[in-house]
C-alpha cells in the first residue's frame, strides 16, 4: 500500500427511513459503496465510471472528506479525509460539472482573487498559474465578464481554472464535459492532459462520456452497485466485457447467412451485406481468409468494438441484488 490514494474495503451504508403510515416508519439500508479497494499512484490519471446511482459520487465525496465511510480504510496523501477535511481541502481541487464555485454576479477575476485568498496562494505563483490557465483554457477575453453572462462551456472552463489556481496535488472531476460542445470538450481534455503531464497532478475523472476516458486515461475503474467490477487498462476492458469485433462483408449477390466459419457467427444479413461477429481478442485474418475462400467477396471492413457497448453489457450482466 504505497499509492497516493488508497482505499481498502471502503463501505458506505445509508439509513433510509420511509414513512409507511401514520407515525410508522420503515427503515432500510442502502449500500451505496459496498467494499471498494483500489490504489492510485501519484501523477496517474484514472477514469472512474459507472451507471447512475452506482456509487461514483459517494466515493468522490468520501475521498474529499465531506462524507465519512461506514467502514474500511481510506487515505489521500496519507491523510484520513473525513478527519482532516479542512487541511486536505488546501491540497485538493474539485470540479463538479453541474455545480459552480464561481461568484455568479461578479467577473471571473473576482472569484479567482477570492480563491487566491482562500488558499493563500503566493502572489507570484497565483499570477503564473492564472496566466497558464488563461492561455490553455482560452479565458483571456472572459476574465472581466460576470459569470452569469458566460456560456456553459465558458463557465465550465472558468470552474476548472478556479480548481487549479492553488496547485492541488489531486484533482477530482465529476462530469467535467457535461453539456459542452465538441470544441469546448476538446479544450478541456487538452488542458487536463497538460496539467497532468506538467505538474504531475493526480486526476480522478468521473464521466458518462467515454471519449473523455479514451482520450485521457490509461486506466479505468468501473463501479456498479457499489462494487468495483473492473480495474485495469482500457484494452483489458474488452476481454473482460467479452466484446466482439465485427467483420462486415459485401458479397456479389444475396446468399443465405454464412455458416461454418470457425470463431465467427453471422449476426445480421441485409441483402448482399452480412455482419460476422468474432471475439475482440482474436485475429481477423483467418476469418477473412475463410470467407474469401468460400464466398464471392467484393469488399470488407472490420469494426472495432464500441467501448460504450462493452460497458453497457457489463452493467447489464450484473443482476440487481
Amino acid at each position, binding site marked *: 500500500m504505497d499509492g497516493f490514494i488508497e482505499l481498502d474495503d471502503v463501505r458506505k451504508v*445509508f439509513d433510509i427511513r420511509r414513512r409507511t403510515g401514520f407515525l410508522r416508519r420503515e427503515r432500510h439500508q442502502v449500500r*451505496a459503496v459496498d467494499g471498494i479497494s483500489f490504489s492510485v499512484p501519484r501523477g496517474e490519471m484514472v477514469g472512474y465510471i459507472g451507471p447512475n446511482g452506482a456509487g461514483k459520487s459517494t466515493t468522490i465525496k468520501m475521498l474529499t472528506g465531506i462524507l*465519512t465511510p461506514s467502514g474500511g480504510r481510506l487515505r489521500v496523501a496519507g491523510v484520513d479525509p473525513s478527519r482532516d477535511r479542512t*487541511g486536505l481541502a488546501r491540497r485538493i481541487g474539485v470540479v463538479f460539472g453541474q*455545480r459552480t464555485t464561481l461568484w455568479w*454576479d*461578479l467577473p471571473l477575476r473576482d472569484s479567482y482573487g477570492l480563491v487566491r485568498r*482562500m488558499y*493563500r496562494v503566493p502572489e507570484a505563483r497565483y499570477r503564473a498559474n492564472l496566466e497558464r490557465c488563461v492561455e490553455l483554457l482560452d479565458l483571456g477575453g472572459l476574465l472581466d465578464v460576470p459569470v452569469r453572462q458566460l456560456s456553459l462551456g465558458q463557465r465550465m472552463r472558468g470552474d476548472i481554472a478556479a480548481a487549479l489556481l492553488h496547485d492541488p496535488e489531486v484533482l477530482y472531476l465529476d462530469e467535467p464535459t457535461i453539456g459542452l460542445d465538441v470544441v469546448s470538450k476538446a479544450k478541456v481534455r487538452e488542458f487536463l492532459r497538460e496539467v497532468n503531464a506538467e505538474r504531475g497532478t493526480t486526476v480522478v475523472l468521473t464521466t458518462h462520456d467515454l471519449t473523455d476516458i479514451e482520450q485521457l486515461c490509461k486506466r479505468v475503474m468501473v463501479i456498479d452497485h457499489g462494487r468495483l467490477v473492473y480495474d485495469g487498462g482500457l484494452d483489458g476492458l474488452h476481454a473482460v466485457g467479452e466484446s466482439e469485433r465485427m467483420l462486415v462483408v459485401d458479397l456479389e449477390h444475396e446468399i443465405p447467412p454464412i455458416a461454418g466459419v470457425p470463431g465467427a457467427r453471422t449476426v445480421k444479413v441485409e441483402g448482399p451485406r452480412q455482419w460476422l461477429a468474432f471475439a475482440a481478442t482474436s485475429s481477423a485474418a483467418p476469418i477473412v481468409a475463410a470467407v474469401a475462400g468460400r464466398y464471392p467477396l467484393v469488399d470488407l471492413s472490420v469494426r472495432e468494438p464500441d467501448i460504450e457497448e462493452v460497458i453497457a453489457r457489463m452493467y447489464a450482466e450484473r443482476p440487481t441484488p
Partner: protein
Amino acid sequence: MRFGDDEGERGMRLYAAVAVGGFRRYATYRTATAAGVFTNTVFGFIVAYTYIALWNERPHLGGYDRSQALTFVWVSQALLACASLLGGGFQEELQDRIRSGDIAVDLYRPVDLQMWWLASDLGRALFQLLGRGVVPLAVGALAFELALPGDVVTWLSFLLSVLLGVVVSFALRYLVALCAFWLLDGSGVGTLSALLCMFFSGTLLPLNVFPGAFGEVARTLPWAAMLQVPVDVLLGRHHGAGLAVALAFQAAWAAVLLAAGRVLQSAATRKVVVQGG
C-alpha cells in the same frame, strides 16, 4: 504566537475580500437599487402621513413627539434593505444551495461557512445602507421636520448600533436558512421569521408604543436590536451608561445568536458528512 497572528490576519483579509465581493455584487444591479430607493421613498411618505394622523390623535405616543415619530419612519425606510427588516439578503441563496446540494461544494473549501456568509452579508448591508438608505432619509428630511442629531458622536454611535443590528439580523437569518438542512421546504420558516421580524423589530410600529408586559417582552427580544435600538440611539434617547447598555444589549444578542448558528452549523455539517445530506 507569531504564527497564530499571521493566520488570523490572513483570515481577516480573506473575509474582507468576501465582504468587498458582497458589496460589489449588489452594486452591479443599479436598476434594482433605483427601484428600491423609489419604493422606500414612496412607502416613507405613506407611513409618514399615517403616523402624522396617529400622533395628531395621540401626541407623545410611546414617548416620541411628532418629529421623532417621523424620524423613526424615515430611518426605518433607510434601514429596511440594509438590516433586511423584511427578510431577504443571503437567506434564500443559502437555502437554495442547501436544497440543490451545491452546499457540498462550499464544504470543500478551507473556509468557515458562517464567517463567509457573515462577511458577504456585511458587504451587502454596507452597500444597501449607502445605496438604498441615504436617498430616502434625505428626501424625508427635506419633506418633513425630522429630529436628526447635529453632533458627530451620536451619528457614530448610530452607525455602530446599525452594524450590531445587521449582525443580529444576519445571525437570525442564518439560523432560519440552516433549517433547510432538515426541512424539505424552508419557505414556511422563512415567512414566519419575516413576519416576526416585521413586527418585533418595530418596522410596523415603534416598540415603545406597546404598553405593559407585552411591550417589555417585545423590547427584549433580539428583533428589537435590529431597528428599535439604532433609531433610539440616533434620537439620543440613550446617553452615557444608557448608551453602553443599549449597545451591549445588541452585542449580547449578536453573540448568543452567532453561537447558536455555530452549533446548528456543526450539526448540519455532521448530518451532511454522515448521512450525505
